[in-house]
């Protein structure tokens, strides 16, 4: 058995192995495969059922089990959900284990896995991966149709959305 506490190393090594065997395409295909199989019964089901609140439900469970250092915010009315990852337990472990070298594009798996689920459901997925070398990142998920309808209907909520985004960037840094 590979303990779930050591999974991250196995995951990173798998990406390296797949790239060596089949190039970056093999890695990307795996991420798509994983997204379809792994997240369709959890994140996808929750968002389909509860809208953007499904994101809160999903990550509330996952990030607590992963013992992440994070701030999570949900504004259902505005259709905005965001995660500010102050210290990612997965990337943090990979950086801490000095005897193994993390897969170079390790952090992109989150982008591929979650975007693939959320965008077809009508959400925009916008990660900031600029500080992953410090095990930090953030993501803002917004309901597309909500934003579009607000843009058409008036500028009030458009400003509100913009304010939240700026705030997230400030908090991330």
């Amino acid at each position: 058995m590979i303990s779930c506490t050591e999974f991250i190393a196995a995951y990173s090594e798998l990406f390296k192995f797949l790239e060596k065997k089949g190039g970056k395409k093999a890695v990307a295909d795996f991420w798509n495969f994983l997204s379809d199989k792994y997240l369709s019964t959890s994140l996808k089901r929750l968002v389909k059922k509860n809208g953007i609140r499904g994101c809160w439900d999903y990550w509330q469970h996952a990030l607590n089990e992963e013992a992440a250092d994070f701030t999570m915010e949900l504004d259902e009315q505005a259709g905005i959900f965001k995660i500010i990852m102050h210290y990612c337990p997965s990337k943090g472990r990979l950086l801490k284990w000095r005897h193994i070298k993390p897969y170079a594009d390790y952090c992109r798996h989150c982008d591929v896995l979650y975007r693939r689920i959320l965008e077809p459901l009508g959400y925009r997925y916008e990660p900031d991966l600029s500080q992953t070398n410090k095990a930090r990142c953030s993501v803002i998920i917004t309901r597309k149709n909500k934003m579009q309808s607000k843009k058409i209907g008036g500028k009030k909520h458009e400003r509100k959305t913009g304010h939240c985004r700026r705030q997230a960037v400030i908090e991330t840094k």
Partner: protein
Amino acid sequence: MAKKIMVRKASDNEYLHKDFHCALNLGLEYARRRFGDDAVRNYLCQYARSFHAPLIRDLRRRGLIALKEYFKNIYAIEGAAVRINCSKDELFIKTDFCPAVKHIRRRGFDVSPLFIETERAVHKAICEDTPFAFELVRYDKKTGRSIQRFYRRKKS
């Protein structure tokens, strides 16, 4: 319409995300379908040699007691009862179920036919270039119940 904020420190929770077992299972299955059984075994050996390098060094230095301590800790973290018998030349690990297999099944996934290699291939690779060898004496694919044996190689 809810507006909620959650703030957590790493120290607020125990690091134990069992769904990672499902992700690993799917990883093995993807690699098996795309590159074949041997590729999966090669990957697991590569992982073992790389990630377990400190444990392998410890095994060379201190012998089977290093593995005993490692497995005792891992099974305790995963919440599985394990019976371990260790001597200078032999280490037996007996489990009634594999916590990973149990969780994967509970979540409704099929267990990869190569999931057994997370014990067989990984533990064999850990023993490479050490005075020890590994034998998977018994393994039940349904539950992951197993008897594992590490033993000192006979000098030729």
